[in-house]
Each structure stands twice: as C-alpha cells, then as structure tokens.
C-alpha cells in the first residue's frame, strides 16, 4: 500500500513537472518576444500545477522550487518592463486578471516585489496588501507555500533599519508587523491541517505537518534577522506576540517546535532579559508538550553562552538566572507528577551544566541539584531505565569535566548518593569515568579521608563481588579496567609518611575485599607504594627512635606480609614470591635481618609448596638466587641456611640444562666481592656439580636422540671458570681451564654432534675474549698468557 502510494506520488510529481515545464517553455517564448499578455497567461498556467493536493510536502516542495526558479525569471522580466517604462501599478492591476486565485496570488507577490523595489508606493502598504491577499488561500499546504513565497520575495525589501525601504511612514515596526502577521496566519494554517481529512490518516498527517514545520519557523528566523529588533521591541512586541500565538494555538507539535525555534533563533542576551516571560509560558502549554526538551535546550544554549566568555557572566547574575531556572524546573516537576524519571534527570542534568558554567564557584548549588535529584529518585531502587541511566551518567560526568579535579567532586555530599541509583554495570562505568578523569588530570589525592571517599565512589571497580557480573565480563576489558585502578593506586601520594601510611592502610582495606580476580592487579602497586615509603623513611631519619614513631619500616613490613598473603589464595604464587623477595630486599636495606629472613622463608615456602610448574620454578629460582646474592644483612648462619636451600632447589629442577644453569648460578652466592664473601671451596663445588650435570645432560641426549647434545652448557661453564679464574680463585687451576677448552674443542669436532651455530659463535667469542685479555698485558695478561687456545 505504502509503496504504491509512493510510486503514485512520483507519477504525480512527474506529471506536475511536465506541465510546469511545458508552460514555462511558452512563458519563456513570450518573455523573449516581449509578449506580456502571453507571459502572464503561461505563467498562470504554469503556476496552476501548484494547485495539486496529491503531493506530500517534500514532493510539493520540489515542484514549488521549480516554479520558484521560473518566477525569478518572470520577476526579472517585470523589472525590465518597469525600467522600459511600463508602470508597475498597471502590472499589479494586470496580474489580478489571472483566473485562478493561486496563480494570481503568486503573480501578485512577484509583481509586488518589483513594485516595492520601484518605490512607487510605500513598502508597508504593498506588504500589507499582499499578506492580506494571501488569506484567499485557505488550503493549508498551498497556503503555507504561498506565504513562504511571499516571505522569501519580501525578505530583502522589509523596511527595517538601514534598509532602502525604510523612512517616511515605513518603519521597522511595519516590517515586524508584516512578518508577525504572516507568521500568525501560517501557524493557523499549519495547526488547522490536523483537522482535515479522515482520522485514520492522522499519523500520516502528523508526519506531513512535521515536515512543514520549517515553513512556519522560518518566520521567526526572519524576525530575528530584522535590523532594529532591539531588546525593547523584542520584549514588548515580538516575544509576547509570538508566545501568544504559541500558547493559544493549543497544539502540541506547534508548541514544542516553536518554543525550540524561539530559543534557537533569538540571541542569548534577549533570553536572559526575558527569562521570566519565556519560562512563564511553559506551564501554559499543553500537558503533552515535552517541556524537558524545551527547557534543556534553553539551558544548554545559555550554558554555552556563559562558557563563551567570562564577560557575559554578570548578565546572568543580574537577572538571577539560576534562581529563575531552578524555580521553573521545580514547578514543572511538581506539576507533572507522572513525569518519567529520565525526564526529571534530564532537567536536573541541564540545570547542573548551566550552574557549573555560570556559577563555577557555587558548589552548594551543584550539591543542591544533586540532592533534589536524589530526593526524586529515592524509593525507586536502582534504575533499570536506560534513558534515565544515561542521563545520570551525564549528570555525574559534568562536574568531573568542568572541575577536572576529583577533590572538588568529593566535596559534593550528594554525589555518591546519586551513584547509588545506577545499576551495577553503569555504576562501574561511571567509576571508570572517574578513574580516567583522575589519571588524565593527574589529580592529587593526598589524605586517607579522601582515599576513603574516593574508594567508596569507585567501589564498583574495587570490590563489587557480584560474581555473575565478573564472569560475564570480557577478559580484556577487565584487565584494562584493573590496570587503570593500578595506575590510580600508584598516583595516591603524600610526602608526609604518617598520612601516607594511613592512606596505604585505607587502600589495603578496600582492595583486600576485591576478590581473587582483582588482587593480582591491585596488590603490586600497593606493595610498591609501601616500599617507596620504607625507602623514604630510611633516608629521612636514620637515627629516629623506632618505637615512638607512628610509622616505622617494621610496621609497614608487617602490613605487607599480611597483604601478600592474600595473593596466595588467588592463587598466584609466582607473583607473591616475587613480591616477598622485593620486600626482603627492602628489609635488607633497612638492616632488618629477621624481617628479611622471614620474607625469604615465605618465598621458600611458596617455592616448595605452590610453585609446581617447572618453567615457573626456573624463573623463581633465578629470582631467588639473584636476590639472595644482593643480601648483606644476613649473618653466617641464616645465610648458610638460605644458600644451602637455594642450591638444593637448583639441583632438583626437572630438566638437566635448567639444573645445570641454576647450579652454576649458585656459585655466585659464595663469592660476593662487595660483601666480602669469598668461599672458593663452595664455588668450586657448584661449578663441578654443574659440569657433572652437563655431562649427564649430554649423555642423555645421546641416548635419546643418537646424537650428542649441544656443548653450549660447557661453554657457559667455561665462562664461569674464566670469571672466577680472573678473580683469583686458587681452586681454579690453569689445567682445569685448559682441559675444559679441549673438551669443548673435541666435542665440536666430533662428527656425531649436530652443528650448532649459536654454540660455535659463543665459543668463538669466548676464545676471542681470552685472546683479548692476553693482549692486555699486566697482571690479567699474565694470568691468561699460559692458556692455549
């Protein structure tokens, strides 16, 4: 049905266009031969095509535009005629003879435009005549287009200030009067349209009416462009007359649209100075009118104006714009009891934006608006309406965007209450927005109280335990979000150790409730914050009496111990182990041997009981060895225990090459120049053991694959030999080095062994190193000299 209708319409339009073209062709011929009579005849016939009532507004507009273009040529002709001495008055008379009223009216407007230009009669009289004459067309669609034609051709001929048509008895008031009258008549036609035709076509009609709205609204645009409509005239004449029409037409569509137009086409200054009148019209509109959109539009416009320059702000204060708007909104909300939540929030959110732009220092206003919002929402539970939710997010985001400072936002007591009404997902999104804003603006949060409020605000990210929600979450999104939280934790800082410690404890309390999925993200930054504090304390007052101080490294370490423990249940033993070692190192720097030992013990327990994956074990053991090597706080006994264990773990790794490497790495535990640890015997034990393992590894490879394995382990061990040989370890003899080199050389030449370019290169560079040391001369050179390569 509908598609048929559209096709038919195309046909009708095509027919209209064809008729129009045909007549315009003859019109042109007549124009070219200066035949006025024929020109009028054919132009009238051409314009008759506009009498159709079969076209929808948009199609009619297409036809109209074609006629419009042709009429411009006719107008030029009239002007030429006039210049050639043909009286425009006569022309004006002449066109009245056109038979049908619609073509006649178009022709009259066209000649009228030339008439005004000729100045043979006062503009205002001609305009008045024309606007009256248009009353003859009462068919809404045709009438609207005819009047918009009149409006267009008279557009540059209004006697407004500075225009060439102004003066004598023609004043700007005449121009205004003309436009207002045309506007009023057009609005009446437009409103009346809904009552024409069968009720079953109401929907279609409303759509068509909606398409036509700009023809009516354009009059307001013309009014706003009239030179000389100053504030007084606007306040006394234009606005009241327009509003009168808007209110009295009692039509929802017209009222909605025209209010929007008034707000958009007239300047901000005027709105401010006539706020009461404009707002006063709102309650008089039909109950179905979407006032929230109208008011929101007004406030948005005024907000932009306020944001444009600080110079305009006094205007706002002078007219008490906030109070007026607040008042109007309260009234609207009060009057419309059934107003949907999203509408209420939209209103508050626009008012809030307005307020932060105009009264950026009045946090109390902002909080008051949030409070009013809470009051309206209370008892409703979490919102499920997505429109309302979106509006709340807008409401809450506005202060963040404006103040760019979480401190200010934390002062808004009602802010967290509003957040409560968001569903869990949105609540979390909002928390995200807050975190991002803090990171982006590098906001400084520096007291435990603020941390407490902040974490309360973003609890959706910190400790929402709704496991269903967590499961549904996209893994990547979750990681991203938690990485932001981690960055946020790192940003929390205060130079005062006492306060910083309080902050750390507050953070800890919150994040420990975060559940196993979040802990791996949130614990590490907390540990590093704490260790940073430890270092700060240590550098600040080395000689402060420990027990009196409110924060001491010891206390911090106790807290850390508990915190890391939480990770074990996750379980992420590797991460916990690494953090224990970090703590041990910090304790080492504070000379706290028992504490360091305790951390090591924890790390070892984890290693023994939790780290089961062989790859993870390799990584862990190297971490342990590396850290242990740097420890200087341990006495002989503790040190012995720990190194003994470490070598034990090393020798028990699953894969032989891993074993070998870990064991030779252990050799460094017994020879640390800086800490005066020099136990050559045990270095040697490690290296020899490593050699044995390397041998075994090779044999195993032989047995399993038929070819001997790589010699790379031997080359690695050779390098360790050289290292300690250079250090002067008496246990490492020239002969032992020499035989190792020979062993490797033989292996490499062995036909059975697979070629290994990496090993060859490594060996070559090792030999180059020996050569290099030889060439150095001196004590080192002497040592290397006897080595044969």
């Amino acid at each position, binding site marked *: 049905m509908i598609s048929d209708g559209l096709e038919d319409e195309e046909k009708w339009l095509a027919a209209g266009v064809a008729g129009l073209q*045909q007549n315009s*062709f003859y019109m042109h011929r007549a124009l070219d031969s200066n035949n006025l009579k024929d020109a009028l005849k054919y132009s009238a016939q051409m314009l008759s095509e506009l009498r159709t009532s079969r076209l929808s507004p*948009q199609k009619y507009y297409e036809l109209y535009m074609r006629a419009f273009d042709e009429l411009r040529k006719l107008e030029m002709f009239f002007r*030429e005629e006039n210049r050639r001495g043909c009286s425009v008055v006569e022309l004006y008379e002449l066109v009245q003879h056109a038979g049908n009223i619609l073509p006649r009216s178009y022709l009259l407007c066209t000649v009228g435009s030339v008439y005004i230009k000729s100045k043979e009669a006062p503009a205002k009289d001609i305009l008045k005549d024309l606007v009256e004459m248009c009353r003859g067309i009462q068919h809404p669609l045709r009438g609207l287009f005819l009047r918009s034609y009149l409006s267009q051709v008279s557009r540059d001929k209004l006697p407004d200030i500075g225009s060439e048509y102004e003066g004598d008895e023609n004043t700007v008031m005449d121009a205004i009067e003309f436009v207002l009258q045309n506007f009023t008549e057009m609005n009446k036609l437009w409103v009346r349209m809904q009552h024409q035709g069968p009720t079953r076509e109401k929907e279609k009609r409303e759509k068509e009416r909606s398409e036509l709205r700009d023809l009516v609204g354009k009059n307001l645009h013309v009014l706003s462009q009239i030179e000389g409509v100053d504030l007084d005239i606007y306040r006394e004449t234009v606005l009241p007359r327009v509003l009168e029409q808007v209110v009295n037409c009692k039509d929802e569509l017209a009222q909605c649209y025209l209010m929007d137009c008034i707000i958009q086409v007239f300047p901000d200054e005027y709105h401010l100075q006539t706020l009461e009148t404009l707002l006063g019209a709102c309650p008089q509109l039909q109950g179905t009118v979407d006032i929230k959109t109208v008011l929101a539009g007004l406030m948005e416009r005024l907000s932009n104006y306020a944001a444009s320059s600080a110079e305009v702000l006094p205007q706002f204060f002078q007219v008490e714009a906030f109070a007026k708007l607040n008042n109007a909104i309260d009234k609207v909300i009060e009057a419309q009891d059934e107003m949907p939540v999203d509408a209420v929030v939209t209103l508050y959110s626009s008012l809030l934006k307005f307020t932060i732009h105009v009264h950026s220092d009045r946090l109390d206003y902002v909080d008051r608006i949030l409070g009013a919002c809470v009051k309206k929402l209370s008892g409703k539970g979490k919102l499920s309406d997505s429109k309302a939710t979106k509006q709340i997010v807008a409401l809450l985001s506005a202060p963040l965007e404006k103040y760019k400072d979480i401190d200010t936002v934390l002062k808004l007591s009602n802010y967290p209450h509003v957040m409560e009404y968001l569903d869990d997902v949105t609540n979390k999104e909002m928390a995200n927005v807050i975190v991002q804003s803090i990171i982006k603006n590098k906001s400084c949060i520096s007291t435990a109280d603020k941390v407490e409020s902040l974490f309360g605000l973003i609890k959706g990210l910190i400790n929402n335990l709704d496991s269903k929600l967590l499961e549904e979450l996209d893994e990547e999104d979750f990681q991203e979000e938690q990485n932001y939280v981690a960055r946020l934790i790192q940003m929390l800082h205060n130079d005062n150790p006492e306060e910083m410690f309080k902050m750390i404890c507050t953070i800890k309390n919150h994040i420990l409730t975060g559940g196993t999925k979040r802990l791996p993200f949130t614990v590490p930054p907390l540990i590093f914050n704490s260790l940073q504090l430890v270092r700060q304390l240590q550098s600040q007052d080395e000689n402060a009496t420990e027990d009196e101080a409110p924060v001491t490294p010891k206390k911090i370490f106790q807290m850390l111990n508990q915190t890391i423990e939480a990770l074990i249940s996750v379980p992420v033993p590797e991460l916990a182990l690494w953090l224990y070692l970090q703590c041990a190192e910090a304790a080492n720097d504070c000379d706290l041997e028992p504490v360091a030992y305790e951390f090591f013990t924890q790390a070892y327990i984890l290693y023994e009981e939790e780290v089961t994956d062989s790859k993870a074990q390799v990584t862990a053991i190297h971490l342990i060895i590396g850290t242990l090597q740097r420890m200087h706080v341990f006495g002989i006994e503790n040190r012995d225990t720990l190194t003994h264990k470490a070598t034990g773990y090393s020798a028990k790794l699953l894969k032989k090459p891993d074993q070998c490497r870990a064991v030779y790495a252990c050799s460094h535990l017994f020879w640390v120049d800086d800490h005066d640890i020099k136990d050559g015997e045990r270095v040697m034990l490690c290296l020899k053991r490593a050699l044995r393992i390397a041998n075994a590894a090779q044999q195993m490879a032989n047995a399993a694959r038929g070819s001997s394995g790589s010699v790379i382990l031997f080359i690695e061990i050779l390098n360790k030999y050289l290292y300690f040989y250079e250090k002067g370890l008496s246990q490492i003899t020239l002969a032992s080095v020499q035989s190792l080199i020979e062993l490797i050389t033989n292996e490499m030449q062995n036909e059975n062994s697979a070629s290994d370019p990496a090993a060859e290169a490594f060996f070559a560079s090792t030999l180059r190193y020996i050569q290099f040391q030889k060439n150095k001369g001196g004590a080192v050179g002497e040592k290397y000299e006897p080595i044969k390569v």
Partner: protein
Amino acid sequence: MASRRRMLLKVIILGDSGVGKTSLMNQYVNRKFSNQYKATIGADFLTKEVQIDDRLFTLQIWDTAGQERFQSLGVAFYRGADCCVLVYDVNVQKSFENLNNWREEFLIQASPSDPENFPFVVLGNKIDVDGGNSRVVSEKKAKAWCASKGNIPYFETSAKEGFNVEAAFECIAKNALKNEPEEDIYLPDTIDVGGGQQQRSTGCEC
C-alpha cells in the same frame, strides 16, 4: 547574450551549525556582522549583483540551517545550484571533518551531471578568534583536503572582520559562472527542434 537563466547564479552555503554561514552571507551582502548567534531555520537566500568581466549577474546565495532539525522539508532547493560553498570553523575540528559529509550529501541530493567537476569552494572561517590561538585545523591540512577533492579553491575568512570575504565570493561567483547549467531543455511535441532553439538564442533584450 546569456539567457535569463545565465544572469542568475545560484550558490548554496553548507556547513555545520555555528560555523558562520549566515554571518558570511550577511557580511558579503550587507556588510554587517553580529556577535549574536541566531540559528537559521530552513533555507533562505539573499541576492547580490556582481560584475564579472564587465557583465552583471545576480548572485542568489542560499544560506541553510546547519542544525538538522531545522531542515525538515528536505533539500529540493539544491536543484540548479551553480556552486556549493562548504564552510567550517577553523577552531572546531568536527566542523572540518564534517565537510566530507556535506560535500557528499550535496552531490547525492543535487546530483549534478558532472559531479567530478562540479564547483565547490571551501571557506575556513573565524580565523580572527583569539588571535588565531584557538585554531585547531591548520591551513595546510585544509588545503590538503581541498587538493584531494579535485583542487577545490580554499579561502581563510573572518566574517567578523570582513577578512577575505569579498575575495572568496568573487571566486565563488566566477566558479559558479564556469559551471555549465543543466537546463532540462523542454521541447513541446508541437515545436520542431530548430525552431525552438532559434527562439531561445534570439530572445535578447540587452
């Protein structure tokens, strides 16, 4: 001489809301500027007589609403345009990015016979704002875009200070004149082709 049609050059100004379309037109036609923002509703034109190579033309300049909700009737007025002016605000990135949409929308709706060569002119307006300090679209970037769309002429303007407005519209008028009009020449059945054209070409009154 040209037909009446050729004495009239039709120009359409397009661009986002607030970039200064109305202000540019008012500055050019009336030499007036207002700081106040008054939204345009629908489409509206002003005319101005221009002289190109000693010949007089009427420039019909159509100013349009940048706000979509004020363009309810469609864009039938694009028909028969001789030149399309695309305006953006050099201080607003989005308004520059939208030029492409405006251009494409125009080409679809107006469907000129030779879209490749249809004359456009691009204006980067409001260069006066904050002494140029708040500008976000560089001249280079704008020119690069214009070059990529078939060497569209580009002008930097200030409707407020009247800077470059005259020069821009002169270029607009000249380009409009270059555009070959698409007269859908209507020939009634009863008239033979030769006669019809004869009639047209001799009907000169100047």
